[in-house]
Structures are given as C-alpha cells and as structure tokens.
C-alpha cells in the first residue's frame, strides 16, 4: 500500500476506488472558470476508532483550489496562509473517527481559464489512518468544454513607418492575433495583402520573430492565406510582422491601408480593423545633391570664364512644380549672356532679368542642371574670393527656397607682355661717336593685378657716358650695386593697366670702335613676377677713321728751296680725325721724277709708300722724308710731291700737293787758270795754258761762254786750243776763246769739267820782269759772269850774246825758239782744283757726258742768234711697226672712234715716234708709257654711257712734266734716227725743232688739259706719206686753233666737236697703212 503522501503523485496510478462517496458537481462537463465542488463523506464502519485519520484530495490540472473552500464537517481547514491541508502530501488530519462516526469533507475547485477543450479532469480523495491503509474514493471524471477566441480587441493590425512615412521609406505591418478563448486555436490563418503603394520587403515576414518564409516555401507576398501558426494557445498572442517599402514617389497624404483577415480551425475568418498610414511626401532640395558650384573655383584669373553650375536635385519624395533659380552675382562677376544652359540646352535669350531662370517641374529624384557662364572682371586683387549665390525657389510648400553659395578664388597677377612692354630704340640704328642714344621704355601692366616693388634694372654698355633715365620729363634717380655703375631705377607700384614711359639717354664716347654693337637692355623686376626681360635696343657704331687735307699734309722742312744733290726734308703729318682707329695707314708718294726719296724717318718705307700701321683716333703720325733732287732743273721748276693716303676701310685721301721750289744754279766761280811754266818764262818760250772750269753749282748751265782776253805779251799758237783734249778750230786768226762769243759750252751739267788748253809763245821783246796774266770770263745763264785770273807769269830775260846755234851748220843771228806743234802734254792730276762734290752724272740718266759744243760763229755772222742753235735743218722722227703692233694699232684706231676730237688723241698716242733725231731722247719712252696709261684709262672710261670728260682725263701733272722734257729734248734733237732693223713698216716724219722749242717755252704758262702739249706732240707724227702728211697737217691746224682756248673749251671740243675732214684724213691714213702692210 502506498502511503498517503505518495498517492496523487504525478504519473502515479489512481487509487482503487473503495469509497464511492465522492460527489462532484458538475458531474460531466466543466467549462473554464466554473467552480467544481467536491464532497467526500466517510464513516467509521468499524469499530474501533480510527485514529490519526488523514484525508487528501488531488488537484488535477486545469483546476485550482478555491481558497477557503476546504471544509471538514463544515469547518474550514485552511491555515492562516490560505493553504489547504487537504491538498498537502500528508493530507488533512481530521483526528480520530469514532466508529460510525461520519465525517464530511468539502472542497471546491475553480476551473482554470484556459483549458483545452476535451480535457478530462479526474478527482479522487483518499483517506488513511493509523489503523487503516490508504483508501481511495471513487474517481470522478469531468470533461472540459472550451474554445479559442481570436476575434477580440487584442487581435489587430497596425502599420507604422520606421521614422517618417515618406515615399521610399519602409513601414512595418504588424498583425497581432490574440487568442482570447480558453483553448488553443489551431492553424491560424492570416490573409494580409501587401498594402497598396507599398511593396513587400523580401524576407521580412516574421511570426513572433521567427522567419516564416522558409516554412511557407515561398515569398510571403506570393502566398495567399498562409497558416502562420499551427496553434495559438488560449490567452496567447502571436504577432505577424512584415515590412513594406513605400512606393516613391508618392504624393503627400497618400493613405496606405493595411488590411488582414484571420481565421483558424476553430474560428471562422474575420477581418481585422484596417490600419492606415499617411504618407508624408514633399519635394526637397535640401541635401547635398543640390549644389551650386563654380568651375574652376580656384586660381581663376580675371577675364577667365567661370561656369556656375546649379544642380537642383529633388531629393524629396514629391515633384516640385515651378522651380526657379535666381543668381546673385557680385560686381566682379559678369554673366555671359546667351551662354546659359539647362540640362545642356541653351536658353532663350531674355533681356529682362537675365539672372532668373525657370527650371520648370522637377520630379522627385530628378535633377536639373543650370549652367551659366560668367566672366571674372579685371582687375582684381590676387587671392581674393568672389562669392556667387543662387537662390532656388519652389512652391511646395509655398515660398520654399534655398540659397546656395559658391566661392571663386581669384588668381590675379600683373603681367608685362612682350607686345606692349619693350625697350625700343629712338632714332637711327647707327650711332655716331659723341652722339646721343635714346631708347624708350614702355612698361604697361596689362595684367589684372598691381605689380609691387617694381625695379627697373638697366643693362647698359659700360662704355656709354651720361646715362640718365627720364619719366615725364623728370629725371629719375639711378642707383646701383656700386656707386660707379648705377643701373637700377625704383619704380614702386605699377598699377594694373597703368602705362609708364621711361626714356633712357646716353652718349657714345668718342672715339669708339667701328661696327661695334651698342646694346641697352633692361629688365623689370617685380615682387609678383620676378624678372621680366625687355628686349634690347641695338645700335651699330658707325665710326671710321678719317683724314682730311687740313690735318694730314706734306710740309717742307727747314729748306724752302730744294737744290740738286741736296736733301730736303719733307714732313709728313698724318692725323686721324675720325672716330675709329685706322689700320694699315699708308701714304703712297708720287714724287716728281727729278727727285728721289732718299730716306724715311718715322715710318716704314715700302717702295714709294710709307707705312704708318695703326693710327688711333685723334692721333697723328709724323714722318720725315729725305728728298734728293736728282738732276738740275731750270730755275723755279718745282718738284711736286703728291701723297695718296690710304687705310683699311676708307677711301683714299689725296693730300695737298707739296710743291718744292728748286733752285738749281750753275756755278763756274771756282776754277783754275794755270800756265806751264807756272811762274817764270823766258821770252820766246812756249807757254801752255790750262783753264779748268767746272760747273760747281747744282744746275745745268744752258750756255756758258768762256772768253779770255788775249795778252799783248803772248803770241797765240794757232789751232792749239783744245777743250778736254778735243781740238777746236780757231775763230779766224783768233783763238776760239778770244772771239766775241768765246767758247760756248751748252748744257753743262753740274760737276762737269771742261779744260781749255792752248799754247802761246812769249813775246821776245818783253823785258824781264814783265808779268803776264790771263783773265777768263765765264758768262752763263745770261746773268752771271765769273772771272778766273791766272797766276802771274814773269818774264825771265837774260842777256845772251851767243850766235852759234847747236845743230846748225851755220850761224844764225837769232836765238833758239820753241818748237811748234809740239805734242801737248797731258794734264796731271795735281793740276786739278779740289772742287766741291757734285752729283755724279752718267749717260744713263739722260745727261750728256760732255757739254755739247758748237763752234762759235764767225764774226761776220754777228747777227745770228746768240744761242747758236738756229738751223733750218729739220729733225727727223721715226715710228716703226712690227706686224703685230701694226695690227693692234689699226684695231685700236678702229675701236677708239668716239665723237669729238678725242679720237685723234688716240691717233697721237698710236703714232708717237720711237726715235727723234739721231740722238737718244730719253723722255720719249716715258712719254709713251704715260700716254699709254692715261689714254688706256680714257679708252675704258669712254665706254661708259654718257661719260663726261674731265681735265684729269686729258692731262696730269706728271704727264705735263714728261711732255715738257720730251719737247725740250726733241727741240734740241738733230738729225734723223736710224732705221729699225726688225720693223716691217717704218714711218718717218720731220719737224722744225725751233717750232717745237717755241711751243715748249709756252708750256710754263699753259694750264693743264689744253691743246698745247698735243699740238707739240702732233708735230712729231710721221708725214712720210701723203696720207700721213695730210692728216698731220689737218691735225695741227685743228689743235693750233685752240691756241688761245682754255682747258674747258678744249675738253668740250674733245668730246663734242666733230671734224669730218680730220676724221676722213685719219681714215685715209689708216687705209694707207693697211695697204702698206
């Protein structure tokens, strides 16, 4: 038997029903909340008292003891805590029950509120005592009757957004199913369609937090009426939750209604009260996607375009209607009209309110882009910020707007463009030493910002002087690193778009090297830009050496007169009056042929040129020339010295001609007159006289007449006179020196000696002691008369009585005398006088070795000219042609046919004789060469079109000098020249020497380039043939016609006067030569 404490244990089998006195009300069914009353009665049917009786009731599930309902025999058994001992494990002690004593135990239970329908509730009571084992009552079985109740107030649906019910946001639909019944609801089904304007958020469906889509096997929104719960106990709730996404966009105020139906196996479907959610929706431009920006925003330079972009993004959930934008631009930002676009499309140009733009409607999540081009004005301060603003207006809610701003950071700097800024040269590019240079500097800040701390640095040639900088007539201070080279000008601030003009002036030093470049440069230094180089201004120095005839000259030294065989000092002074050094300065000297350059001091001599080398500007060089007059000249016949000054890089400068007067005078003052015997002589003795005369002067004596007065004491030995051992015929009965003219010596050159020797016999009747002396007179040049007196010769007479003469077979009343025709004794050296040295004269320089002698005329020809040259004999000329020369001559005459008489000068040149007289004519060759040189040049010049003849083309001083010599020599020539052995054609001519001499004497007065020399030369032309004679005659006629004409008339005639007769005669002569050849 089980003790009482072990009965009614969970899982324990019920007690055997022994006492069937348990009455339960209700008897069959019970419902939740009902009170079940049980009454158990037992009786001691025994006999003995049952002691220690204990009674216990079970408490089945679903029933709850009603406190205070446990009664023993009507007495409450509950303790003070409301616990009933009837339900305790030990049961309630009811004490001893006497036999037949009956006891009644009552207890009440309350049916639990939630008890599953059909639940069986078994009630049993048990009693035990010390004496009796535990006895069970009958078991009363009650069946519970209950049902679930889903449709109640707690079963509902709700929808609510997580935050704001805005389109696009999510909302949560919550369906709460509450089983308000007493039993479990089975297979709870919920029909919950996704609300309109929403969409199901996949995987979001949960039932009591548990995902159900896996169980459903499909998405929640695709299953209609799913069973969300298999059972829902009574009094329990279940929650179905899923999330939906609110459609966007949606107009504001849109109602989202959530509906649901619920049902279970026990509960028919019923609808839950719908829940709704009002959508909060409005357009919005408040987020960052609506922006206003500038591109570029940094480093924008004035004048640069800036694109302002307003991006209006409707970040709201509703479309915005009538959206407009208005730009607020600062004063430094100008809108570019016509450049605005909306979404890339250009806008129609509006003149009114150009900064307001209608953007139109903008749907939610739509964007409109307004682009406006602006230009940043200039000038602007660097790193300044220009702010632009855009105000976006829309009308939902009314008068909504948003102001956006953007900044443009300015990058501004000054600029000095090369086109507007520069250093330009003012005036010519050629700089002259001593001249001024001027350059203009233009500084124009065409940048957009001020240039600060401007400093102008000049780059100036150090050689320039007086450098100054001016601005608006004001001289600016020049500073520099050092005091002696100021090169900096402080300019301060150069404001934007300001133009400053500076002028640089400097002076070129003098002298200065030629062709050197002078450069003035400048650079502008500013704090912002640093160094800005300006172009350089260039000049080229035009500096040349120069010589003029005033400062470069030939000067005669101490002597004013040049004498033959003497040195004359000529100073050459060369001064460079130019501005550059003269290189290779040389002076080519043209000295008359009669003078020779002997020495040069102060310069290097190279032939006839003097080399001075380099001569600095303003420097001068001096050289001293030693000129020696080579031969005697006539009085007042000057020696000319011409100088042609040359140097590199300059035109030759002819110096003023130096004319040196010459004074060549013969001098016969020194001589000796001696006799042999010298001191004493016996009467009847022969005395040989020696008269030594010498031209000790420096000029040629044209005529020297030597006369010696005869002595009465002497008897001349006929034909004993010799001159330099050449016997001279007596003049009648007189010795040749005793005639009226005496012995005439012609052309006695300086240094030439003449020794006149004759013999005489001392008169026998002279008393002893008589002195005999001769006096010789030498008259020359018509003016001077020198006297040479011989030493006295004394007569030594002694008495002689002898009459016997040895050698004679007879006596002779006389005395022995000197023998006649005795051989003259030669002069001994000691008879010569020591005379001053003279210039050696040789045949090579054209002088005659001895004075030409001519016999003095007889006394009966006293009226003859004193010169003694008068003769009627003509002098011959000859010109010989080889075949080659003849051909060239004829071709030259054919080519040299010019207008005017100039052609005939070429004819004179062609037929100039090669020989005059039977002697040598030294001037002829020089004349031919000079004529050839001059006329060849003239021939070339006449080929120039419209060439105008000048005087120097016709005759030059050197040609004049040579011609004079030729005329002199030809005038003195005699005879006929010899035949040329190799000539094929020989042309001869004759002329009257007197006529030529007459012409020669007029040379001195004739100016250059007159017809006179040519008339003289024409007389030397051949006249052997009739053609030649005719041509010469006509040519002489033509040239003599210009006797009184000056050079201008003659030159004009040479070029313009035609003479057909003369031309024809020349043609005839040429033709005849052709035929002769």
């Amino acid at each position, binding site marked *: 038997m089980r003790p009482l404490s072990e009965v009614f244990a969970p899982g324990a089998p019920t007690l055997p029903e022994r006492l069937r006195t348990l009455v339960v009300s209700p008897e069959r069914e019970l419902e939740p909340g009902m009170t079940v009353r049980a009454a158990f009665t037992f009786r001691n049917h025994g006999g003995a008292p049952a002691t220690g009786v204990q009674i216990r009731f079970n408490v089945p599930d679903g029933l709850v003891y009603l406190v205070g309902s446990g009664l023993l025999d009507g007495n409450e058994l509950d303790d003070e805590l409301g616990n009933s001992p009837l339900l305790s494990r030990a049961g309630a002690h009811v004490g001893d029950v006497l036999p037949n004593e009956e006891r009644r135990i009552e207890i009440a239970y309350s049916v639990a509120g939630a008890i599953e329908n059909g639940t069986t509730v078994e009630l049993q009571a048990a009693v035990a005592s010390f004496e009796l084992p535990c006895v069970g009552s009958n078991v009363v079985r009650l069946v519970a009757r209950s049902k679930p109740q889903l449709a109640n107030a707690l079963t509902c649906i709700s929808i609510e957004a997580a935050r704001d019910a805005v389109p696009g946001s999510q909302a949560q639909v919550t369906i709460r199913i509450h089983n308000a019944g007493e039993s479990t609801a089975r297979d709870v089904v919920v029909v919950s369609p996704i609300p309109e304007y929403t969409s199901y958020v996949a995987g979001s469906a949960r039932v009591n937090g548990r995902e159900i889509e896996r169980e459903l096997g499909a998405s929640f929104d695709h299953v209609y009426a799913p069973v969300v719960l298999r059972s829902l106990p009574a009094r329990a709730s279940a929650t179905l939750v899923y999330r939906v996404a609110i459609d966007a966009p949606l107009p504001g105020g849109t109602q989202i209604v959530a509906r649901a139906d619920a049902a279970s196996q026990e509960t028919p479907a019923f609808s839950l009260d719908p829940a709704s959610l009002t959508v909060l929706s409005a357009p919005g431009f408040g987020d960052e996607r609506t922006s206003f920006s500038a591109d570029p925003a940094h480093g924008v*330079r004035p004048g*640069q375009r800036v694109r302002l972009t307003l991006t209006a993004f409707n970040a709201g959930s509703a479309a915005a209607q009538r959206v407009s934008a208005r730009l607020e631009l600062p004063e430094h930002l100008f809108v570019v009209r016509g450049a605005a676009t909306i979404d890339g499309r250009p806008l129609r140009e509006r003149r009114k309110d150009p900064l307001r733009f209608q953007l139109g409607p903008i749907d939610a999540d739509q964007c409109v882009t307004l682009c406006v081009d602006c230009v940043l004005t200039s000038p602007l301060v660097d790193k300044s910020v220009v702010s632009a603003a855009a105000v976006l207006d829309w009308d939902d809610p009314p008068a909504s707007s948003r102001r956006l701003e953007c900044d443009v950071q300015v990058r501004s700097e000054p600029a000095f463009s*090369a086109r507007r800024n520069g250093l330009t040269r003012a005036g010519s590019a050629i700089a002259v030493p001593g001249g001024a240079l001027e350059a203009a500097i233009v500084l124009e800040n065409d940048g957009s910002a001020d240039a600060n701390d401007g400093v102008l640095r000049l780059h100036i040639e150090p050689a320039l002087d007086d450098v100054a900088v001016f601005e608006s007539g004001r001289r600016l201070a020049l500073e520099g690193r050092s005091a002696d080279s100021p090169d900096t000008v402080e300019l301060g601030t150069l404001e934007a778009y300001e133009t400053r003009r500076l002028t640089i002036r400097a002076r070129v030093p003098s002298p200065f090297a*030629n*062709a*050197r*470049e002078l450069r003035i440069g400048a650079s502008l230094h500013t704090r912002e830009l640093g160094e800005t180089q300006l172009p350089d201004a260039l000049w080229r120095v035009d500096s*040349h050496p120069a010589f003029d005839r005033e400062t470069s000259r030939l000067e005669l030294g101490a002597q004013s007169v040049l004498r033959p065989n003497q040195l004359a000092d000529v100073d050459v002074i060369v001064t460079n009056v130019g501005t550059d050094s003269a*290189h*290779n300065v*040389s002076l*080519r000297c043209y000295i008359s042929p009669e003078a020779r350059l002997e020495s040069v001091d102060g310069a290097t001599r*190279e*032939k006839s*040129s003097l080399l001075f080398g380099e001569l600095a500007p303003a420097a001068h060089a001096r050289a001293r020339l030693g000129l020696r007059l080579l031969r005697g000249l006539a009085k007042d016949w000057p020696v000319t010295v011409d100088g*042609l000054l*040359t140097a*590199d*890089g*300059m*035109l*030759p400068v002819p110096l003023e001609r130096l004319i040196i007067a010459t004074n060549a005078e013969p001098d016969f003052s020194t001589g000796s007159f001696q006799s042999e015997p010298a001191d004493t002589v016996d009467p009847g003795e022969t005395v040989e006289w020696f008269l030594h005369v010498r031209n000790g002067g420096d000029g040629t004596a044209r005529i020297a007449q030597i006369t010696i007065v005869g002595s009465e004491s002497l008897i001349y030995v006929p034909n004993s006179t010799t001159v330099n051992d050449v016997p001279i015929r007596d003049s009648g009965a007189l010795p040749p020196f005793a005639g009226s003219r005496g012995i005439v010596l012609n052309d006695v050159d300086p240094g030439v000696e003449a020794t006149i020797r004759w013999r005489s016999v001392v008169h026998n009747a002279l008393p002893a002691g008589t002195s005999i002396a001769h006096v010789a007179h030498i008259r020359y040049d018509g003016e001077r008369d020198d006297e040479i007196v011989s030493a006295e010769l004394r007569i030594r007479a002694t008495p002689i009585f002898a009459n016997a003469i040895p050698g004679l077979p007879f006596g002779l009343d006389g005395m022995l005398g000197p023998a006649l025709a005795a051989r003259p004794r030669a002069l001994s050296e000691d008879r010569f006088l020591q005379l001053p040295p003279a210039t050696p004269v040789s045949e090579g320089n054209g002088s005659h070795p001895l004075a030409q002698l001519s016999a003095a005329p007889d006394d009966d020809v006293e009226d003859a000219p004193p010169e003694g040259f008068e003769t009627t004999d003509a002098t011959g000329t000859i010109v010989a042609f080889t075949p080659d020369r003849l051909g*060239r001559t004829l*071709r*030259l005459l054919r*080519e040299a046919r010019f207008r005017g008489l100039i052609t005939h000068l070429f004819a004179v040149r062609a037929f100039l004789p090669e020989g005059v007289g039977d002697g040598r004519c030294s001037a002829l060759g020089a004349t031919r060469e000079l004529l050839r*040189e001059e006329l*060849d*040049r003239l*021939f*070339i*010049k006449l*080929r*120039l079109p419209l*060439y*105008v003849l000048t005087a120097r083309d016709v005759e030059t001083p050197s040609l004049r000098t040579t011609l004079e010599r030729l005329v002199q020599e030809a005038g003195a020539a005699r005879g006929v020249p010899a035949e040329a052995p190799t000539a094929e054609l020989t042309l001869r001519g004759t002329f009257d020497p007197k006529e030529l001499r007459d012409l020669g004497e007029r040379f001195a007065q004739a100016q250059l380039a007159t017809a006179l020399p040519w008339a003289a030369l024409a007389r030397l032309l051949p006249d052997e043939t009739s053609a030649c004679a005719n041509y010469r005659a006509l040519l002489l006629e033509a040239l003599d016609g210009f006797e009184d004409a000056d050079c201008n008339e003659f030159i004009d005639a040479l070029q313009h006067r035609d003479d057909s007769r003369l031309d024809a005669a020349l043609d005839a002569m040429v033709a005849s030569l052709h035929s002769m050849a």
Partner: protein
Amino acid sequence: MLAVTLVLVVFIVALATVGYALVRPRRKSDADLLIDEFGNLSNAERCEFIFAVATLDDPSSLRLVERALDDPCEAVALAAAHALTTAGRTAPLERFLSEHPGGRAESITASLELLA
C-alpha cells in the same frame, strides 16, 4: 586655351629668335666696308676708284679689284681687268675669265688685247 595660346606665342617667339640669329647682319670687316662703299659709287666713280686702288699693293685693294671683275658695269670690269693686267696679276683674271665664259669675257679679252 590660355595655356595653348601661351605655348604658341613662346614657340613663335623662339622661331623668330632663331630666324633673326641666322639672318642678322654680321659685323663686317674693313675690307667688306670698303667693298660696300665701292658698291655705292657710280659707274664712273667705280672706274676711277679701281684705277686709284690698283696702284696700291695691299691685299684688300687687290681683293676689291678682283671683285670688280664681276661688276655689273662692263667698263668697270674692264678697268679692273686692265688694272690687274698692268700690275702683272694675270692669274686672278685668267681664273675669272675661265670661270665666267661668254660674251662679256670675250669682250674684255679683246679690249685687253687692244690695249696691250
């Protein structure tokens, strides 16, 4: 755009600088200056000049005379040829005549033969 323009400007300036450096006039020697001055003379003056400098025996004068052989004026060229012939410097003349054959050379040769 501004950068491209600047690059173009710098390029053009560089080209201009190089061009100027190539064609800028060089400094002339004294002989060249003499020749330049010679070129500015008239035909007659050039003839006279040739005759004057032909007497000088310096290299620059000789070079000038040799250059005058190619003078546009035939008379000047003839003067130079005559001057060279007279001075005995026939080598440059012969070289010139061989390098410049034609009617002008023949004319000069014939004239020189006449004046020989």
